[in-house]
């Protein structure tokens, strides 16, 4: 089993590094002022947004036990805290964890 885990870890890391490595190779030929660069910039932000939306809306693991309405409310409240604290990133993150555990226990 142990050697199995090591192999799985290596396979996972290779599958991950592959995209990073190919990215550098492609980047060698792409100027930061080109259209291609701007397109990839859009793709990077949109795939990130898609990923994050998926984590919140269709979570796996412990978040999936929370009702989606509660998740939604926690996200909205945390974004409000983000704006109130002048775009501080520490407060909304800590706030979200506290408010979520309160909601999941008392609602």
């Amino acid at each position: 089993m142990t050697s199995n885990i090591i192999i799985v870890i290596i396979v996972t890391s290779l599958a991950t590094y592959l995209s990073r490595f190919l990215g550098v190779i492609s980047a060698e030929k792409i100027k930061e002022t080109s259209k291609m660069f701007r397109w990839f910039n859009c793709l990077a932000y949109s795939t990130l947004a898609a990923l994050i939306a998926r984590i919140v809306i269709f979570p796996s693991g412990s978040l999936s036990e929370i009702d989606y309405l509660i998740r939604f409310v926690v996200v909205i409240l945390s974004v409000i805290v983000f704006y109130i604290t002048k775009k501080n990133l520490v407060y909304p993150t800590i706030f979200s964890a506290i408010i979520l555990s309160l909601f999941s226990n008392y609602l």
Partner: protein
Amino acid sequence: MIDIKYFLKGFKSIKGVGSPAIALGASFIAIGALLKNLGFSIQESIFSTFLTYALPGSLIMAESLFIGASLINIFIAVWLVNARLYPMTVSLMPLLMHENQPRWKYYLSCHFIAVSSWLIMKDNYKNIEKENRIDFWIGIGTATWSVAIISTAVGYMASDFLNKDILIGLAIINPIYFICMMIGAMKTLQICLSVILGTILGPAFYFISPEWSILFGGLIAGTIAFFVGEKNDK
């Protein structure tokens, strides 16, 4: 070799109001606890974060091990969920490339590309001379990567004390951090549209194919945003 002044400047990005340390720490503590429950040793858990350093990939790995998927299936599933790193790398590295810098720095430091380090670099690169950006980036990468590795170990050791409520709290921190950072990054029409359309299309495509939803949703959202942005910027 590496300009220590810029390296340290990048390294310090884990301090202060924009710090990713809490968000990163929270999610990798959860990963450490998860890996322990899956039967990993502490060395294997640390090794995993050390080598992969991409959260969704590690989660897929854990799920696949749990259901006993084959190696090739694990490879494909991880590649699919981490393929977002490709456009992220292509849209970051041209900003860092400079003829005076050796190539190995780029091929080695691309390992540090993950959502939090990428968003920090995107937020700060304009303040750094182009020639020094790669050293600044290696500083950011080393700092965020170290936080991830240390947190994995902490999560592994603390797993007995992490009850369900704490794990749920830990699980929300990272998405909230990313959402706030993305909102902070929405400064041009193209990026605004990319983020908004990606948020809608990613989950929408989930109904068609959960595995491909991020890539398809992202590709279509980003391409629409690109064309609309190009048309309106002229």
